[in-house]
């Protein structure tokens, strides 16, 4: 793995996944973007500027935090949180938004646009636009605007125009469609700041590169703070897959580290009720890339459901499909109830409100930590903070009184280590 893994290839493919499936209007602009990106990555002044902003403006490096009470509560492996939630704007998304906005600035574009699901990428892009004096339009599904209202207001206060998208399931997928239509129309003046490791080349690799700092930092921090050379397990949630790629990239060549990506199991296994692409998806082409897609027999894209707006998307970044195929990263899903329970658990044991997206990664940890030895180390990417999700969690609890009770029981009797979700026996180490 160490020497062989060098993806994507020259055509933007990760194995058989990826590529550039876009209308002709975008082909030349994508070429231009590839060239500009290659150029800036060699450009000292660009890298220095981005590095300076990352340390003095967004707050890197983010801490690695030993979650001692959560560890005690679960009674197994030691759990370390990579605190991307402490970044300016409240999530990892700013790593990429700032990088791409600087790139747009460098390319002489006067306007940037973006899609957003949970609103974190929209807020990050609006922030970068304000910082660099660029005009900014954010596309967001109306269902997501309803459930992430706080972020809509934040984007507006930052000076961005927020356009609600009423088509389809009124979520992330529909926002991307609309952002692509805007880009096709205004491509000469506008850069599209795509917010995940999705879309046509060069986006999957560019977004990965801007986020790989997460894992690079964590790798050094783990060594320094735990005494172990590497974590035994690294876990991150996977919507499009940007925070997870950002965490995993630094560990791909280290076979001692087990890597787990967590998809949104939503409200059940039926098509339309979840966003678990590896469980219900098939290979397809959506939004410019060949990847795993939730779709019907006829190739129509399925609607999805997750309590977390940021994971509520029918396709997954193409590099994840290769990592899955290679067996280097394992993918599991966590349902709405488990994610909300993990949200409460972290709030009560550590005083941290995690984003509902990150709560999916935590829920996976809750299942696994008790079955792992006390000397083992779990690294979890806490990709964002949960302020934006307060309303969603309260609404979820009000609707699912039973779940809340089970959660309460879990907290009152920690020694019993009861957990609502199934524990896969084979997976215990």
């Amino acid at each position, binding site marked *: 793995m160490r020497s062989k893994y060098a993806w994507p290839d020259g*055509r933007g493919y990760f194995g058989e996944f990826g*590529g*550039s*499936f*876009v*209308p*002709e*209007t*975008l*082909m*030349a*602009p994508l*070429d231009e973007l590839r060239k500009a990106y290659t150029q800036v990555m060699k450009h000292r002044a660009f890298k220095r500027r981005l590095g300076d902003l990352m340390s003095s403006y967004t707050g890197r490096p983010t801490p690695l935090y030993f979650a001692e009470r959560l560890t005690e509560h679960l009674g197994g492996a030691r759990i370390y949180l990579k605190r991307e939630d402490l970044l300016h704007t409240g999530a990892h998304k700013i790593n990429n938004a700032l990088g791409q906005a600087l790139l747009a600035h460098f390319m002489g574009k006067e306007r940037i646009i973006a899609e957003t699901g949970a609103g974190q990428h929209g807020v990050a892009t609006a922030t970068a636009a304000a910082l660099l004096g660029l005009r900014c339009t954010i596309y967001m599904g109306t269902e997501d605007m309803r459930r992430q209202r706080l972020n809509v207001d934040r984007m507006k206060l930052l000076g961005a125009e927020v356009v609600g998208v009423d*088509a*389809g399931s009124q979520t992330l*997928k*529909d926002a*991307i*469609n609309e952002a*692509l*239509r805007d880009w*096709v*129309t*205004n*491509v*000469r003046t506008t850069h599209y700041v795509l917010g995940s490791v999705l879309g046509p080349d060069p986006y999957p690799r560019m977004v990965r590169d801007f986020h790989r700092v997460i894992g690079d930092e964590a790798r050094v921090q783990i060594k320094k703070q735990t005494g172990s050379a590497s974590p035994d397990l690294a876990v991150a949630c996977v919507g499009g897959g940007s925070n997870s790629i950002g965490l995993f990239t630094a560990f791909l060549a280290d076979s001692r580290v087990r890597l787990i990506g967590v998809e949104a199991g939503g409200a059940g296994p039926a098509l339309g009720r979840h966003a678990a692409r590896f469980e219900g998806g*098939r*290979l*397809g*082409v*959506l*939004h*410019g890339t*060949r990847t795993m*897609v939730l*779709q019907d*027999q*006829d*190739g*129509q*894209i399925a609607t999805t459901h997750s309590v977390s707006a940021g994971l509520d998307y029918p396709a997954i970044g193409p590099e994840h499909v290769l990592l899955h195929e290679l067996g280097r990263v394992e993918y599991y899903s966590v349902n709405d109830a488990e994610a909300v329970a993990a949200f409460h658990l972290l709030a009560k044991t550590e005083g941290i409100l995690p984003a509902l997206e990150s709560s999916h990664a935590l829920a996976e940890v809750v299942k696994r930590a008790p079955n792992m030895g006390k000397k083992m180390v779990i690294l979890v990417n806490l990709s964002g903070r949960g302020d934006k999700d307060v309303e969603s969690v309260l609404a979820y609890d009000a609707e699912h009184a039973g779940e809340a009770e089970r959660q309460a029981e879990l907290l009152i009797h920690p020694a019993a280590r009861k957990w609502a979700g199934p524990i896969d026996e084979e997976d215990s180490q």
Partner: protein
Amino acid sequence: MTAIEEVFARCRAEKRAAFIPFIMAGDPGLEATPRLMEALVAGGADIIELGVPFSDPMADGPVNQAAANRALAAGTHLGDILRMVARHRDRLDVPIVLFTYYNPIHAIGLDRFAEQAAASGLDGVLCVDLPPEEAEGEYLGALRERGLDTIFLLAPTSTKDRVRIVDGASTGFVYYVSRTGVTGEQAKLPSALKKAVKRLRKKLSQPLVVGFGVSTRTQVREIGKVADGVVVGSALVRLIEEYGGADDLPQRLEALVRELTGRPAGARAEG
């Protein structure tokens, strides 16, 4: 000579541009589509561009998006569209080109799709989100092997290199997108359009057809002076949206196509 090549040869001889109307298959329902295609032919269509509805049409404006939604709500599947074409092919005396996104084809599988498409009597396929670079090899092979023309797009942003690549991958014709943007009507054509088309046409080995945003008789005539063919879509789709439930929809559609082609009522297209 393929059926599409014959159309352009005939139009050249008649010193006019080919008229290529677009409608969405299955809008308002798949049972209505054959009669609507007949109406297009009766009104003077030289080639029919038949849309395949897709849930996420990123290159389409609101009018065609709504048409795709109506077609999907009516339960339209690509397989059914191909069977419908097969059943009615004999009565439609013009080439039919499928205008689609790639995923519905990908879902059927390239070989199976190409086989069914060729068997149905379709003449060509234009896949909006499949540029020549991604079509090379499997897609081009599967379609050409079965005699289907492969049509690709050019856009105002296309560079010289890309013009060469697109021309090389296309058979039948090349489809030039009149503006950077999505499908839909526009009051005024871009001022540089005619010049761009003239310049482009000299560089291509294939006939050049212009579409996106063409919706009036004047626009059809103006573009017809410089291009080998003109596509009108959204204006027709809007009529179908408005009169979808009316019994006289085919007559209305035929009348609109007549108006756009400038053919007098009663006169069947020459040849």
